[in-house]
């Protein structure tokens, strides 16, 4: 009796917690409300299944608990019931999977008008690189990283000369423009994660990974590293500021290009 009651209370308590507790996702600031919607669908389907199974159990425990003289039924199989349950489950799973894959195909296919922005992770800070007037990022190589060239931009690549380099400082993005984040690391795995954008992806030394999103709200957002990267991992915070177009251009105008940053070095080598 008590056991059945506790089972019912677990269901009621969990549902109440879900709807009444103050702990929920942060307000979204990107175009990925598709992902939020998929999560809501998943909460509904799984919530109904959880409640149904546990309440059924509670009923069984209450109704079929041992009492003197009871005898259990003898029922090894029931093919019709088993097939029926299999089909219902398969339908439920499909209802989760199909919207999920549909949104995933949006997530992995970057729109052609997205601007590329490079994020470079290293223990334990974030740097960024934006394409210059040519709209193209120059190629890079970890082996070219040194004090004057912290991101390892390949100096002989003409595309890289006008790239804007933002070393260990805040990134600014214009609101409403799709952006493709190109992710690199020069030491260990990191993961560029802004909870409000809902997107994240690991950064792997030796590879360039990516995700894309469109910022939909101006404001300041905290960047968190989401892949364990050594003992400084929880301190690896950064900042993304989503600006209006004018503010963004004002900020961009103050940044230095790769050519400007490496100019003293080139003069030195000319001597």
């Amino acid at each position, binding site marked *: 009796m008590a056991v059945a009651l506790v089972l019912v209370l677990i269901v009621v308590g*969990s549902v109440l917690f879900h709807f009444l507790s103050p702990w929920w996702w942060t307000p979204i600031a990107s175009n990925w409300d598709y992902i939020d919607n998929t*999560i809501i669908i998943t909460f509904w389907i799984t919530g109904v299944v959880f409640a149904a199974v546990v309440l059924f159990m509670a009923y069984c*425990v209450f109704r079929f608990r041992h009492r003197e003289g009871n005898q259990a039924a003898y029922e*090894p199989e029931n093919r019709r019931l088993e097939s029926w349950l299999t089909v219902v489950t398969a339908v439920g*799973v499909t209802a989760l999977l199909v919207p999920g894959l549909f949104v995933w195909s949006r997530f992995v296919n970057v729109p052609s008008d997205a601007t590329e922005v490079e994020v470079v992770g290293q223990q334990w800070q974030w740097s960024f690189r934006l394409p210059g007037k040519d709209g193209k990022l120059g190629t890079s190589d970890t082996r070219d990283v040194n004090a004057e060239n912290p991101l390892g931009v390949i100096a002989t690549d003409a595309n890289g000369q006008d790239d804007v380099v933002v070393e260990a400082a805040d990134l600014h993005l214009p609101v409403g423009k799709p952006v493709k984040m190109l992710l690199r690391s020069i030491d260990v795995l990191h993961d560029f994660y802004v909870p409000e954008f809902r997107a994240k992806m690991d950064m792997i030394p030796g590879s360039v990974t990516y995700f894309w999103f469109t910022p939909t709200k101006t404001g300041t957002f905290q960047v968190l590293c989401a892949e364990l990267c050594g003992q400084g991992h929880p301190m690896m915070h950064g900042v993304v500021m989503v600006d209006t177009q004018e503010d963004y251009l004002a900020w961009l105008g103050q940044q230095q290009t790769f050519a400007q940053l490496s100019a003293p070095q080139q003069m030195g080598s000319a001597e």
Partner: protein
Amino acid sequence: MVDITPADAVPPAEVAEMELYHPHSWWTKYVFSQDAKVIAIQYSATATAIGMVALVLSWLMRLQLGFPGTFDFITPEAYYQFITMHGMIMVIYLLTALFLGGFGNYLIPLMVGARDMVFPYVNMLSYWIYLLAVLVLVSSFFAPGGPTGAGWTLYPPQAIMTGTPGGQDWGIILMLVSLILFIIGFTMGGLNYVVTVLQGRTRGMTLMRLPLTVWGIFTATVMALLAFPALFVACVMMLLDRALGTSFFMPAIVEMGEQLQHGGGSPILFQHLFWFFGHPEVYIVALPAFGIVSDLISTHARKNIFGYRMMVWAIVGIGALSFVVWAHHMYVSGMHPYFGFFFATTTLIIAVPTAIKVYNWVLTLWRGDIHLTIPMLFALAFIVTFVNGGLTGLFLGNVVVDVPLSDTMFVVAHFHMVMGVAPILVIFGAIYHWYPKVTGRMLNETLGRFHFWITFLGAYLIFFPMHYLGLMGVPRRYNELTDMTIMTESAHHLNSFISIMAFMVGFAQIVFLFNLIWSIRHGREAGGNPWRATTLEWQTPQTPPAHGNFGKDLPIVYRWAYDYSVPGAKEDFIPQNVPGSFAPSREPA
């Protein structure tokens, strides 16, 4: 159902029995024993001991997370060492060793009607190598630099670099060596379990008459034999990278401004190898739990397990499918994004056989005669937590939903619920169930109920709310949550609450350990078959079973393991070795 209820004919004995090894001294009887039952207890005791270390480590973590800044000795390095060792110990050295080495050794020979494992000497070696692996693991706590703090997944490059505790000290080396030893030891035991199930069954014990416990352990062992080699090679390759400077997993790297002497390796290759082992590992832990809980429910509800054949095929199907879902741990790893379509599909397909198992457990309760014994309580609690944790798996398995949730506390909550809490509840249920066979005495009922309620409700209160921290975006593997803009004040209070619950649940485990020891002498006498169960281990002439298990003649099996409450039978159970004089009911198909 014609196929699963008894066939009367029993095949003749094909081969004569082999002579067992008989111990000649105290040492060969109790220490270097070749008796699977002694080895089982050795495995279980060692796993429990190292598990207590993991429990204490979890308290230390929760002290830091619940009350940040209060405990100075929990430095970031120490915190990462705690989480790494906690995870590795729980998954490998406790859960795998206890289910397969502990329950596998004790139950397989008894349940299939064998006198011992097929290769008793190798079986003994298996335990001693396991013990060595545990000792190497423990030694890393005392090594210079301490144990590794790379996270239990040991992802390179950080696992072998200076920014990670133990990365350039002894920690990671001892970890890898310990894993390699564990796998060697496990392989010896695992081959034994598989061959014993296939070749050591007594007359009449067809595969489709095996108790589901044996099916679960058998399938898990086959999977482990296929999955552990992937971890083995990954460990060897990382050891070479760390010790000899090879670059299997190490690309060109600049560490703190300096170019390392590595180049050309692939960090993500390690992840594929690790999860090719790591995902089947989840089911290596889950399948024995599935099997055992089926038998607990059937026995204590006095009703045959519902849909036995479906249950067997679900176990086998889950085992096979679990080899093609590994990259769902890597949706945001940077692997080719199109893999996501494939792995999300396979992952959600695996939900179907898993759901079938849940339905069949609850349908076994339907129209049963439910005795709310302690094993039954734990079985019910398992279903609740497993369903909860399994359903949150549908979030994380569905690739795009995983993107915001991956690497957050949602993941921590999910895997603790589904492969921590749920299987451990089964372990407790199983211990309360089989302790009378192992010791001849019952565990104390009052302490047992206290242990049950605190553990079940406490664990649910720890991990259910934790999902919502993850939904909020709180990342996992952070020892310091103070500077985060997304975390509200109340979220910090929730963390303190979770920590307090964790201490209470941990305390209940000490009560349980006390019960285990106290009841050996003071428990109520159990008799040979206190639960009135059908399977062969309850039909032994002595309790605890003597060396050789079954006295002079091996039992002959006439029926499946689930003849409970057969209409017309005198009692509500018919043991497997009772000839078919009762008309087996033949339900319409």
